[in-house]
């Protein structure tokens, strides 16, 4: 057993983290990002590749239930930690890693999951009137043993209500119209006869697209759990291909509480340094969404150094600024992707970097502030762009959306 245990510990030595941001998530998130970078624990994009679900901050409203469902999607071995404030994150994460290698715990976890699925599998769905029901909030997950007739008969499936849409499941059905099937399904034991619903899912509808073609319409929610995404933001999009046709925006966290949390996190810093930190933090996300891991990690290093006032930060910042501003590829990929004011994405990251450099070099506060009501501007900005551009646009509104647009106390 010694060898197996050793291998197990080796395999789980650097667990993959999926971070969920709740309200007042700033300090724990910054701590986790720093820990992950220094220890080489990868931050991942979704539950399929995650070992540890990290909840940063308080979960309110629909978020707890949402996170419970997200938890179900981690394949396992898995562990879950909840971080608040800025203390104890290292200990909690190391504890979670121990749980990953704990075969007894993981076996119990599997037993719990299968038992619950079995209980749910026997659920009587016959009485449910699926036709009149609003399915927008539901995601269905298959039980462990797939039923070959699952397309017809829904026993064997667990249905879990979700208040918040799930970007990873991709099965959210809100906004979809169900089309009557030509021939009623003889196997449907319950009232599904009026619908063509393989596995209980509505088929995608078609609609004319911008080029005059008829294309599938899919409703896809983005957030609240998405890597490098503003805390608690949910953008429900109607997609054709990967072009956004409609967008609805809501925020599931208290942005004012986040703003207070930012103040707390930056309390020990000079106002100008604090302004540089929030810009670099936003830049981290923008660079991540732009798919440039090298510069993103470099930006994280500078941000963390500023936060802890270590190292020769000015030199690092200048190096980062030169690297990012010199990149022709990044400029070409972001020029013309419009954001608010007269700025496109390229102008936005250029301004953030310039402001951060000026703040650190001369202690001058940035003269401009990012738009305060970004959340209301968002839908109009997103419509017509593809998913990649939409992610860039959201990233440029980071300061406002995450409550990081704090004016330093001195200047209030």
């Amino acid at each position, binding site marked *: 057993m010694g060898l197996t245990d050793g291998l197990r510990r080796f395999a789980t030595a650097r667990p993959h983290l999926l971070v969920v941001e709740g309200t007042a998530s700033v300090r724990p998130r910054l701590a986790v990002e720093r820990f992950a970078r220094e220890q080489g624990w990868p931050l991942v*994009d979704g539950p399929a590749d995650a070992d540890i679900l990290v909840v940063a901050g308080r979960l309110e409203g629909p978020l707890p239930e949402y996170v419970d469902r997200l938890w179900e999607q981690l*394949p396992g071995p898995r562990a879950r930690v909840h971080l608040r404030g800025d203390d104890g994150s290292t200990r909690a994460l190391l504890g979670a890693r121990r749980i990953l290698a704990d075969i007894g715990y993981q076996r119990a976890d599997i037993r719990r999951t299968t038992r619950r699925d079995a209980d749910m599998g026997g659920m009587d769905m016959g009485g449910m009137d699926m036709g009149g029901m609003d399915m927008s909030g539901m995601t269905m997950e298959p039980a462990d043993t797939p039923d070959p007739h699952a397309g017809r008969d829904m026993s064997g499936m667990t249905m879990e209500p979700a208040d918040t849409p799930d970007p990873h499941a991709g099965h959210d059905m809100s906004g979809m119209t169900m089309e009557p099937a030509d021939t009623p399904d003889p196997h449907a034991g319950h009232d599904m006869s009026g619908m063509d619903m393989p*596995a209980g899912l509505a088929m995608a509808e078609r609609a004319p697209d911008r080029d005059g073609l008829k294309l599938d319409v899919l409703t896809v929610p983005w957030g609240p759990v998405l890597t490098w995404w503003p805390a608690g933001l949910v953008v429900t999009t109607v997609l054709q291909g990967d072009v956004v046709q409609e967008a609805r925006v809501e925020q599931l966290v208290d942005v004012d509480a986040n703003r207070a949390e930012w103040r707390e996190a930056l309390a020990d810093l000079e106002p100008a340094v604090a302004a540089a930190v929030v810009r670099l933090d936003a830049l981290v996300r923008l660079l991540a969404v*732009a*798919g440039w891991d090298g510069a993103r990690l470099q930006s994280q290093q500078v941000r963390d150094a500023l936060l802890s006032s270590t190292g020769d930060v000015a030199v690092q910042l200048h190096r980062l600024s030169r690297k990012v501003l010199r990149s022709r*590829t990044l400029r070409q*990929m972001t020029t013309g992707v419009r954001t608010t004011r007269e700025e496109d994405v390229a102008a936005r990251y250029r301004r953030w970097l310039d402001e951060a450099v000026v703040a650190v070099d001369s202690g001058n506060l940035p003269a401009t502030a990012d738009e305060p009501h970004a959340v209301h501007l968002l839908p109009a900005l997103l419509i017509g762009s593809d998913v990649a551009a939409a992610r860039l646009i959201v990233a440029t509104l980071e300061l406002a959306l995450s409550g990081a647009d704090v004016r330093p106390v001195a200047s209030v």
Partner: protein
Amino acid sequence: MLTFGLLPVSDQVSVVGALLLPVLLAGLAVVAAVASTGFAAVAAGRRVTTIELVGPLREGLRLLLVRRRTTLHPDALLWRIGGATVFVSAVLALAVVPIGDRAVVPSAVGIVWFNAVEALLWAALWLTGWGANSATGLVGGYRFLALSLAYELPFMLVLITAGIRGASLDPVVVAQSQTGLWSVVLMPVAFVVYLVSAVAFSFWGPFSQPAAGDAAGGVLAELSGVDRLVVVLGRYGWLAASAAMSVPLFLGGGSGPVLPDLAWQLFKTLVVLLALVAARWRWPLVRAERFAEIAWLVLLPAVLLQALVVAVIVL
């Protein structure tokens, strides 16, 4: 004898070689992964230690430990076929790469074969995205098809240009034709476009949009455990196979002073592989729709011109 789609076998296929081929590919893939881990550590400001460099081994074990998962109502068969094809096609590509003075599967049309199995990736990635029945996977699949529209034509022309030099589609003959002057000197544009295409069809680094984080992982979004391992290994495998093929096509095969041919070949392969891997840390993501513009307006004319120049010189 040039028959597209068939593989005319000019010599006996080496059975031992064929059995060792997946092992060789996996080995090269691990080298690529180790290099990537090293670059990652440097970028994150960590010291490059042994513990960092055994990362791929740890990741492999981790993925074997992690359970497979499924989504609601996936097209499971096509999903798994898609994932497996990423790795299998890389093995098939390596089969026609000369090792020493003969390939494991010697063929008079090895270059065309390489191109054909590369095109299998279109189906492989699309099915991997589609099969999971997830919107982000689907977006990833779309993105790869858009990407392939951009890189595929320049890539085909590059392969043909390399073939013109040796007046053959057999990589062995092409390698032997480069006595005195490596093709990379004669056709630098073709070489660069070859490398760009290799990064693109390996959906790696600047061309990893089909599997990018902005679409929650795209084609990889729903894969876990061994299913993910196969695709990730296949991706590194394609980087390795492309690096290996660049040596006979552009870098004079095994030619070089003092050391035996095999050593030179391995050395050149590793250098190219390192460059391909490093691309991830050097450049941001290139979006398919903007790359299409560059590919059709810049790369394609440039490669056509390159082919013309090479043809004139050779004839």
